[in-house]
């Protein structure tokens, strides 16, 4: 008798769950539309920006524009500043930022995007894991009527470019000159006297990877340098990178330089530690793309010769585009591709200045971001935004923030 009632209970629950699912398929779009209000509605209802504290406390909880960011981490020296800058931009313009992390692969990224949309985000931003994931991301956002954009991503692949630009929900992408960054990293090594290089690289399949590879190839040709060995696998932990360096050095005794063209956060400490243990810090020069927490110390110890990075404002620019769009005061009607600027560090002093004025203090304050909202500053235009983006440098920040 007990067994029968157990089975009945089980059947009821399973049936109920499946029915909920089935009903869900039946109303494919209705729910999403209800969840994600149209642009016009938000224009009416979106809260006033953070400038006025009073308005913030009065009902922002329900009316705030909600933006979503999916990113692999919120704390490391590369992803952390992206999050901090975007958060400050949202605070300044009166929007709410929801962050989803723990990205490991395309399916996790897709899940994050779905969850952000389910959470009520009206625009979501990501760094696509692969060009091939972009049509899927675009479809999810279109089905849900949610705006989307990409940071750190160059849409030079024609197919994915067309997919995005065909969508009325695509805001744009913020990209960096990855050919230039890789070329500059290699040039730094060349200036330090290195020509036989070991390389740590990003996984293939991304436009970023292709561009950085092109930059490295360009430098090799121009400066007569040679990539002896490359590793795109042992990049996820410092231990793996350290072991990889040991293998590189023993297989190629002539190796005199290492370029880290991505995954610097995990690779660089392992590379430096390994070279130090092998007593080869002087012999093997190191340069990398992307900043890390200990770069000042590494420069002081001459463990690193050049670091190219600081491209952490892309998320904030996407937030500026999204908030203005969702407020009904778009800066631009078409999707845009904005080039973010890199910062090149070549000395401990550069690293200290960066740390003090662009990392500990952010390059733009909430008030500065607030001025990029047309609701607050009616005269702000897309051209003004491009000027701000184009002038990004340590000197620019120090001048704007009156640093001696």
């Amino acid at each position, binding site marked *: 008798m*007990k067994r029968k009632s*157990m089975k009945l*209970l*089980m059947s009821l*629950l*399973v049936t109920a*769950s*499946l029915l*909920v*699912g*089935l*009903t*869900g*398929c*039946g*109303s*494919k779009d*209705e*729910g*999403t539309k*209800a*969840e994600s209000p149209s642009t016009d509605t938000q224009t009416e209802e979106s809260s006033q920006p953070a400038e006025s504290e009073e308005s913030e406390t009065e009902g922002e909880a329900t009316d705030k524009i909600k933006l979503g960011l999916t990113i692999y981490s*919120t704390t490391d020296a590369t992803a952390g500043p992206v999050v901090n800058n975007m958060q400050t931009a949202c605070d300044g313009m009166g929007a709410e930022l*929801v*962050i*989803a*992390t*723990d990205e*490991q*692969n*395309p*399916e996790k*990224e*897709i*899940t994050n995007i*779905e*969850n*952000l949309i*389910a*959470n*009520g985000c009206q625009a979501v931003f990501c760094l696509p*894991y*692969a*060009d*091939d*994931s*972009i*049509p*899927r991301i675009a*479809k999810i956002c279109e089905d*849900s009527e949610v705006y989307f954009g990409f940071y750190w991503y160059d849409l030079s692949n024609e197919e994915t470019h067309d997919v995005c630009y065909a969508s009325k929900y695509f805001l744009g992408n913020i990209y960096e000159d990855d050919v230039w960054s890789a070329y500059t990293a290699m040039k730094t090594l060349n200036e330090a006297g290195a020509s036989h290089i070991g390389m740590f690289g990003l*996984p*293939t*399949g*991304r436009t970023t*990877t292709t561009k950085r590879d092109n930059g490295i190839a360009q430098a090799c040709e121009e400066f007569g340098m040679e990539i002896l060995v490359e590793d*795109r*696998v042992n990049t996820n932990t410092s231990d793996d990178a350290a072991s990889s360096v040991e293998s590189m050095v023993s297989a190629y005794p002539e190796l005199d330089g290492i370029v880290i063209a991505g995954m610097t956060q995990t690779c660089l400490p392992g590379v430096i530690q390994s070279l130090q243990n092998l007593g080869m810090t002087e012999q093997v020069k190191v340069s990398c793309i992307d900043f890390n927490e200990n770069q000042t110390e590494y420069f002081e110890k001459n463990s690193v010769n050049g670091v190219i990075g600081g491209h952490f404002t892309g998320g904030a620019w996407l937030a500026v585009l999204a908030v203005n769009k969702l407020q009904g005061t778009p800066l631009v009607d078409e999707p845009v591709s904005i080039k973010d600027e890199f910062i090149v560090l070549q000395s401990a002093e550069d690293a200290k200045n960066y740390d003090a004025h662009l990392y500990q203090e952010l390059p733009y304050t909430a008030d500065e971001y607030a001025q990029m909202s047309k609701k607050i500053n009616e005269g702000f235009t897309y051209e003004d935004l491009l000027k701000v983006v184009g002038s990004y440098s340590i000197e620019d920040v120090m001048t704007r923030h009156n640093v001696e």
Partner: protein
Amino acid sequence: MKANNEKKGMELFINIFPFISLIVVFAGFALLSGGRTLDMTNCRKIFEQSFTLLLVAGAAVFLLSQNCLDMSVGAAIGMTGVVAALVSKINIPLAFFAALGVGLLIGLINGVLHGVLGINAMIATLAMSFILRGLLLIVCKSGTVGIAVKMYDLDEVGLKLAVCLAFLVAAWLLFQFHSYGKQCRAVGAGETAAVQSGIRITFIKVISYVLMGAATGIAGFFTVIRTGAAMYNTGNMVEFDILIALILGGMPINGGADSRFRSAVIGVLILGILNNGMVLLGLDTYPQLITKGIIFILVLAMTFTIRNKINRGKKTA
């Protein structure tokens, strides 16, 4: 008499505990999120996010009921996904059969390693997982493999629901009513006794791994449809998600006669609702991981303690 009643009470509790957990999680998040978890679109997302886990957890019931593990499930999903992506550029139906074929082959090898050669299941499948991840790195060239654009058309929730229902119902019937399912539980209850009862353990084990392989093949195919690309770490950690789901669903970790097929469905639903609900409540990733870990330990500790008491009672009797 009193001891007997107490034992019956504990057995009843252990049986209904997964249902209570599901109801608590479902109702709790519905209340906390102001009903947002009940939104139809959200329910659809929970199903889509849980779809592949439902398939592989359903197949894993056969293995875990025999006290066997498959640590290569994630890597097998990655491999079948990559194969599906590569073959999809030639022919999409062929991509499905290629993924299924590769899954079956991986399952067969695992089955032979453990069932025929007698290598410990965890070690054998762990080794298989390393081999598959290595192959994935070679095939993917440390990057991603995209699918044919037309394959996106298959990303329909109706199709997934049909596949999922068909697979789960077939697996449930097999596990609950067919002699094969009963033999799986008998093997988990005690291999020696099973052998003496005339059960062909080798055959049972090989078939179970082959079934798991079939599930990974289907899961890999639908994973790449969902994401548009397969990567060398596609399917990463799925084997642990399966374990967590089955334990949350009330599966005894040592398998045996108490194994129930419903553990897979209930466990995956609990996990899906839990993951989704925490996101809807705006919980950051790190508190999410901590919360999941704590819930898992609590459920495990509680069910372990109660099961031990029940088993001690049985021995005493």
